[in-house]
């Protein structure tokens, strides 16, 4: 708290001394960071871990606020409505890329500039270790034998488990009962309690349970195996048709309005790129099973566009969209 008091005192003296006027470098004042998910969620943890490092690089504070609701649509619209001066950052996950087809908002990451896509997660399909299913093929065989009987955990429409489930449905015949939970953590909890039979989740949610031996990973939803899941085959080895969707997974990024000044974009790019290389941060992210990306600008846009195509069409084919992706000119993957 002392640090804050000093900070406030420094800020006050800065206001007092502002008559002098400095060159219009970025940033000249504290920034505001809006986190689209609640305290304790994956996006929140990433934001709060990276921000102190960025603050060091920028020399100004970023005041973090959680603005939840509408799977992040409230935060996204709010940041879009703020002045495009680069002083309001959006700490977001993948959700906005599906707002248009789900009818949640008429904006997505096209309206933003990706300061940094920090990392992406990889999905993994898990069962309890006492489950009879040893491979994805076993599971698929069981599902096809009893259509609609096997229980899969999800986190609601558009969430990771639901999307992976829909991918399976479009590639093979895969009819399950999807039981929705509040998030991936509660989903794993239900798996441990034997209330569902399998759940696709991000590696971060499953890693420790796999390590402890209570949960078995059947496959990673990735073009190749992942270091944090040793010995678990990639889904393309059993079902090569998946390749067209991948790489796919949740991601964590920092965004500003697309029409922000170039000076601000450059300063933020540099600060976040530096922070994303910090060994402590990288170790934290990788220990949660994430793949570091640390990309910005055009490179990030390419990733975002493909991601949107995959997810929107998966949702469309699963029949849960309000509007067709075609209406927004989103091409099929």
């Amino acid at each position, binding site marked *: *708290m002392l640090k*804050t*008091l000093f900070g*406030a005192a420094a800020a006050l003296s*800065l*206001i007092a001394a*502002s*008559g*002098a*006027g*400095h060159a219009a470098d970025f940033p*000249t*004042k504290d920034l*505001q960071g809006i986190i689209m998910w609640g305290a304790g969620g994956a996006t929140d943890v990433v934001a709060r871990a990276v921000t102190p490092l960025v603050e060091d690089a920028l020399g100004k504070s970023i*005041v973090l*606020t959680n603005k939840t609701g509408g799977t992040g649509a409230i935060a996204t619209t709010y940041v879009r409505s703020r002045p495009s001066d680069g002083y309001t950052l959006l700490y977001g996950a993948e959700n906005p890329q599906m707002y248009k087809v789900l009818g949640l908002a008429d904006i997505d990451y096209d309206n933003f500039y990706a300061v940094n896509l920090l990392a992406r997660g990889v999905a993994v399909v898990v069962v309890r270790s006492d489950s009879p299913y040893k491979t994805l093929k076993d599971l698929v065989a069981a599902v096809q034998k009893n259509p609609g009987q096997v229980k899969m955990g999800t986190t609601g429409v558009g969430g990771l488990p639901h999307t992976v489930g829909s991918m399976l449905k479009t590639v093979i015949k895969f009819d399950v009962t999807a039981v929705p939970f509040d998030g991936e953590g509660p989903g794993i909890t239900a798996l441990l309690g034997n209330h569902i039979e399998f759940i696709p989740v991000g590696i971060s949610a499953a890693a420790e349970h796999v390590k402890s031996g209570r949960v078995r990973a059947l496959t990673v939803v990735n073009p190749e195996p992942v270091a944090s899941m040793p010995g678990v085959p990639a889904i393309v080895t059993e079902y090569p048709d998946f390749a067209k969707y991948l790489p796919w997974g949740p991601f964590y990024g920092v965004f500003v309005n697309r029409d922000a000044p170039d000076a601000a974009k450059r300063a933020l790019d540099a600060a976040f790129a530096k922070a994303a290389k910090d060994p402590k941060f990288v170790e934290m992210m990788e220990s949660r099973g994430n793949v570091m990306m640390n990309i910005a600008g055009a490179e990030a846009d390419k990733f975002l566009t493909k991601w949107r195509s995959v997810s929107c069409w998966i949702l469309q084919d699963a029949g849960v969209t309000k509007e067709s992706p075609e209406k927004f000119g989103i091409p099929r993957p």
Partner: protein
Amino acid sequence: MRPLNPGEKLFGYLMLALSLFLLWQTYLIAGFSSISSGGAYPMAAAALMVVSSIAVILRNRRQPKVEVSGSADEWRRFRKEVAPPYPLLGYVGMMVAYMLLIEPLGFNVSSFLFLLGSFLYLYRRGVWLSLGLSLGSVILIYVVFQIVFQVILPEGTWLEPVMDRLRG
């Protein structure tokens, strides 16, 4: 049973109207599609609300009234006992004004104005005392919330450009 408060019967009918409106709105969510649909549960709740508000209306009929002497008299008692212009309605008006001013003026300025107004309106012990009390309270709240606990509060859309210019 206690005697009815002025306006209580009318309030009962208003609540019935509210619950019927909510029942219709919850029906629009998903109709009668499935018991696990998003609309079934709110619709059941709204239906229960309709039933209970009818029960409240029936109960009101049985409750004794005080010296019935026409609706004009009830209106007079309502204005006196339930919604007196001073202090209640005036104070509600001040709250509405305060909350509308939070965004344009910012939290600190609007809160100061609200406190000053409230103390003058309710406490009535002189302008200077009210001024001191409200200034003191706002400073205390500013220190506790914005400095110590770092709560983010609206800075004021009208004042923000001015502050930015001041900071250079």
